[in-house]
């Protein structure tokens, strides 16, 4: 009984916690180990933020969504199904949060206009590169949310169709169909960069 109260206070050794799997970390979070949660944030903060940014197009909103996803992991660690991969579960939470955010139909933030870095070797090339990057960003963000999610999961997060299907709660065939439509649209919208 006393041990259960003391255990959360004891911080795990940093080297020990880095060796364990995500699933074990969730188990430890469920037991109240804060150090395990810290490690999980370190592992997933970059993919979470980038995923949310690519969906909502705004850094501050993306940070809020990623933070909320971590909070839900912490709160619901007890309910985690150990048969599923943590990555899939985490992205399911994040996808649901982003989906709710997108339903509110907030205008997408397209960022600052392209700027040339001072001292760039060839300003026209740098400008063109920036311009192209913005065009790609706009083209991706103009896709319907479900297509955008499938594209971001499979292309940027390098998930298999099966994993993406699990995250999006759909079939592999549906993921493939979403990707085909997304790429077809992008090919048309980015025709000028051929």
């Amino acid at each position, binding site marked *: 009984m006393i041990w259960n109260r003391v255990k959360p206070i004891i911080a795990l050794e940093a080297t020990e916690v880095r060796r364990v799997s995500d699933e074990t970390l969730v188990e430890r*979070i*469920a037991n*109240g180990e*804060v150090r395990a*949660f*810290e490690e999980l*944030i*370190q592992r997933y*903060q*970059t993919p979470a*933020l*980038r995923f949310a*940014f*690519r969906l909502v197009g705004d*850094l501050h909103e993306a*940070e809020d969504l*990623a*933070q909320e996803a*971590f*909070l839900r992991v*912490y*709160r*619901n*660690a*007890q309910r985690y199904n150990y048969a599923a991969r943590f990555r899939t579960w985490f992205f399911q939470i994040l996808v649901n949060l982003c989906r709710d955010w997108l339903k509110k139909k907030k205008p997408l933030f397209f960022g600052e206009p392209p700027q040339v870095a001072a001292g760039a070797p060839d300003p026209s090339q740098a400008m063109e*590169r920036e311009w*192209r*990057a913005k065009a*790609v*960003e706009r083209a*991706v963000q103009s896709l319907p949310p479900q297509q955008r999610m499938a*594209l971001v999961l*499979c*292309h*940027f997060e390098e998930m*298999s*169709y099966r994993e993406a299907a699990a995250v999006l709660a759909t079939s592999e065939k549906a993921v*493939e169909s979403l*990707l*085909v439509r997304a*790429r077809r649209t*992008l*090919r048309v919208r*980015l025709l000028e*960069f*051929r």
Partner: protein
Amino acid sequence: MRCFQVRRRLHRFLDRELDPEASRRVEAHLCGCIACRQTLADLVHVKDLLEEFRAPDVRDGFAARALGSALIAPAQVRAPGTRWFSAMAAVCAILFLTWAGFRIGEAYSSRPHQDVIQSALASPVEPDF
């Protein structure tokens, strides 16, 4: 393999989702078909362009903020057996409400109907001579 069959599999081929045998057959077709190679090149071009969509890096302090927000709202640690206790309490409450409903219903049905008595008193039947 025919062109339409290959084009149906090109996205899976690009994403390495085809099994080795199907991949070999697609590759064999691509070697001899300029049109399908062009379709694949278009897809590869889109995929390359997507690399331009860079996302920002995590800003300093994000991990600390995420950790802080979680620690302010502590994890819902559930004591073992709490779920069963809640379910039993809910069942007991439903049973009690059902029993109470029956008792109240019985009490009302055993009383004479006030409306009928009042209407009878208000309009007495005239004797028919």
